[in-house]
């Protein structure tokens, strides 16, 4: 028997909700066949079968939220029947042989197959009277048998952690207890990634302005001919055109092997603000996509990110990341690069501003500011400025984009 457990599919998930089983008890399954869909705080993940066999048990009902490590299904591996036949013939011998592999591999379930409570009735009563589930108490004995001491130390730990919080915040007595937000899941993962990036990459950020007036005009014209495309699609297209000319920003520093990898794929991450935190869905192969297609992808992925229905592959392998904070406001930032990428651009709010045109007249223009952070180990300031200049020229004279159509 093999248990299929909910494991960390990535992004620091700690729990998930069972959405749908793709198999039922008695079904034959092959290795890597999808078994169940689980909704985590940011995506829907499919768990696949680790072996070929038969689904023996479905442990968790649809709709239940479970912690990482919880068993979802039990699969009987093909060929196990034979081993059991041997047990019948020579119980003692095979019992010993199997015992070894059993402890090493699968642990608890096989040790305790009929969900027997491995604790004396009095031990269970202590747990019950203290409103804890005996099943939650970790056993100090390798057999899984929970003792009175285990229950008391479990209780003490919980009480102590409660106590220490109270002690710290209760004195001086005038202070009010703060609200607590659990630091876990997506929040914790963001923290880890940001720390790693900032402590690894020497960040440089430079700011620039881009005149959006012509782009807006073109967009209006397109709208009149019923082609409605939002601004980010143009920005992303222009960005990828610029990246092709400045491949150093679509790169990854491989310090271990003393090399910089200039990537041939242009997968653009779109930093997206969701209720649970920052999520970065990825538009793959942007260089091969039309502005229209990019527009469609941005919309779809943003919606999925907000709904929490992104598939794992939709969040992987970005080579460059864009943070479009314009709709929220702001004029500048020092963004942190999405490690191990080399650079990141944040687009800020576009404002109407007086600008001086070629005829030295003061006219009203639409100006967007941008902040570009890059890895100073990989590139230098001049290159970065050249890069954003190129990007700005594509946006300021959007008809140039046509020249780059494939």
């Amino acid at each position, binding site marked *: 028997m093999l248990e299929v457990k909910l494991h960390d599919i990535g992004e620091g998930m700690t729990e998930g909700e069972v959405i749908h089983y793709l198999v039922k008890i008695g079904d034959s399954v092959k290795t890597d066949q999808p078994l169940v869909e689980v909704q985590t705080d940011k995506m829907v993940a499919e768990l696949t079968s680790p072996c070929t066999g038969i689904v023996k048990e479905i442990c968790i009902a649809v709709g239940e939220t479970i912690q990482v490590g919880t068993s979802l299904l039990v699969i009987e591996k093909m060929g*196990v029947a034979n*081993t059991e036949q041997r047990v019948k013939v020579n119980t003692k011998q095979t*019992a010993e042989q*199997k015992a070894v592999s059993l402890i090493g591999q699968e642990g608890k379930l096989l040790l305790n197959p*009929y969900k*027997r409570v491995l604790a004396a009735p009095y031990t269970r*009563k202590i747990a019950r009277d203290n409103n804890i589930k005996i099943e939650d108490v970790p056993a100090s004995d390798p*057999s899984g048998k929970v003792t009175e001491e285990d229950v008391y130390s479990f209780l003490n730990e919980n009480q102590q952690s409660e106590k220490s919080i109270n002690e710290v915040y209760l004195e001086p007595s005038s202070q009010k207890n703060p609200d607590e937000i659990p630091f876990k899941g997506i929040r914790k993962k963001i923290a880890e990634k940001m720390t790693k990036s900032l402590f690894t990459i020497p960040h440089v950020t430079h700011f620039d302005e881009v005149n959006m007036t012509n782009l807006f005009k073109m967009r209006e014209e397109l709208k009149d001919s019923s082609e409605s495309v939002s601004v980010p699609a143009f920005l992303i297209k222009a960005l990828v055109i610029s990246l092709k000319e400045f491949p150093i920003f679509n790169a990854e520093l491989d310090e271990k092997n003393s090399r910089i990898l200039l990537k041939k794929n242009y997968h653009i991450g779109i930093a997206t603000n969701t209720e649970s935190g920052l999520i970065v869905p990825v538009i793959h192969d942007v260089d091969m996509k039309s502005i229209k297609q990019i527009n469609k992808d941005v919309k779809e992925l943003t919606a999925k990110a907000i709904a929490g229905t992104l598939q794992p592959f939709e969040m992987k392998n970005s080579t460059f990341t864009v943070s479009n904070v314009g709709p929220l406001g702001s004029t500048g930032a020092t963004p942190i690069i999405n490690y191990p990428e080399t650079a990141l651009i944040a687009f800020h709010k576009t404002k109407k501003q007086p600008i001086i045109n070629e005829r030295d007249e003061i006219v009203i223009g639409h100006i967007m500011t941008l902040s570009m952070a890059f890895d100073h180990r990989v590139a230098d300031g001049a290159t970065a400025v050249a890069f954003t200049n190129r990007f700005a020229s594509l946006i300021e004279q959007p008809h140039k984009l046509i020249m780059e159509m494939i």
Partner: protein
Amino acid sequence: MVVGEISQERDLIIIGGGPGGYSAAIRGAQLGLAVTLIEQSEMGGVCLNVGCIPSKVFTHAAAKCAETAHLQELGIGSSTDIFDFKKLLSYKAKVINQLRTGVESLCNANKIEIIRGKATFLGVDRIGVENGHQFDIFEFEQVIIATGSSPIMPPALKRKGKRTLLPYELFMLEEMPEHLIVRGQDYIALEAASSFAALGTKVSIVIDEKISFPFDESINKELNRLFKKRKVSVHKENEFISTSETEDEITITFKTGKHVENSIQGTHLVVSGTSTPNLDSLGINRFGIEQTSEGFIKVGENMQSSIPSIYAIGDVTEGPMLAVKAIKQGKTAVASIAGEKVAMSLTFYPVIAHTIPPAVSVGLTEENARDFGLDVRISQFALGGNGYATITGKKDGFIKVISNSATEIIEGLHMIGEGAIEMAGSFVQLLEMAAKEEDIKFPLYAHPGFNEGLLEAIEGLIGQAIHAIPVKNNSLL
């Protein structure tokens, strides 16, 4: 029937005075609850009046009968002693009366209000009790349904005359049956067959080919061997065909496993099998109580049903229809009502039969262990090696231990042999304590006694039983 306008108020009402109901009532009183118990017939229910208790009078008498030869060996009695069935019947009546009076006086001493009559739900907080022309209405805070179950005759065997009996009717016969045919394989069937054979009746058993006796397979095998030894014929039924009854005889016809038609002729046929919960006349289903597809009331671990004011215990709930379950559930329900935190588990309920000798299985059987793919060590100690078994002439049987190879935690304990029912207490305790092999090996065992068999069975796990021949090529040594 006069419908009273005024309803009387009560705290806790228990419907049914069987072992579950009266245990709940007494425990409730001990916990300070005001308890009202409604019983439509006799206190003690099926168990005391027509079930466990009368049948045990028979198994007890049978066990004594079976000792005759051994008693003579000891110089007691003679082969001319005769068994007086009428005397046994009056002894049975005496025992039942004594126990029933005991229950009633305990209820009185605990200030439990006993109301005679038939209860019907009028709402989720109201009940009507009918007794002849009287009809009283009671409002309650909580009610515990403990109305038990009734055995049902399979439709195919629908009764033709007085020779086809349900188990409780067997123990009400006025005369010893001459040739008893027992159909079934549960503990009731086993006890009936074993006792009547020992009392001198010719016995044939017809068992369903697909279902074995309810114990570990080793015990089931031993039971078969003992039946054979006592000239009780065991037949396997693959397909029931018919029964036909005359003035003095009954014939059962069925197909055997080999699809051969077989007929057995006897004087009585007793049919053991299924029972149905006594719920129809209660009218509780009208109030939307959650029931299983078989009609049992669904309850949580504190015996509360889907209707918060209504609890249910015993045979009206799912699981084995045994007094042991009802008693525990009854205590659990009132403890919960009294505000205690409760738990209820049937994982280690003892499966027993007062056969000759008696048998018990607690926990995992060898077959279960195989089904779970569990690595176990198994040891079986034959009582032939036990000194006290030799003294008392009770050498049949064995004690079997199933232990988890990886953890040394005991998974199952089984016994057939003298004293098995009392040993069952130790078995259940050890399993509930999640005892390891050492926990059984370390203590001292009264000598001489059957209890030493448990120690030797444990020691046998590593080939160290003192009174057993060493196993050759023991892979563990």
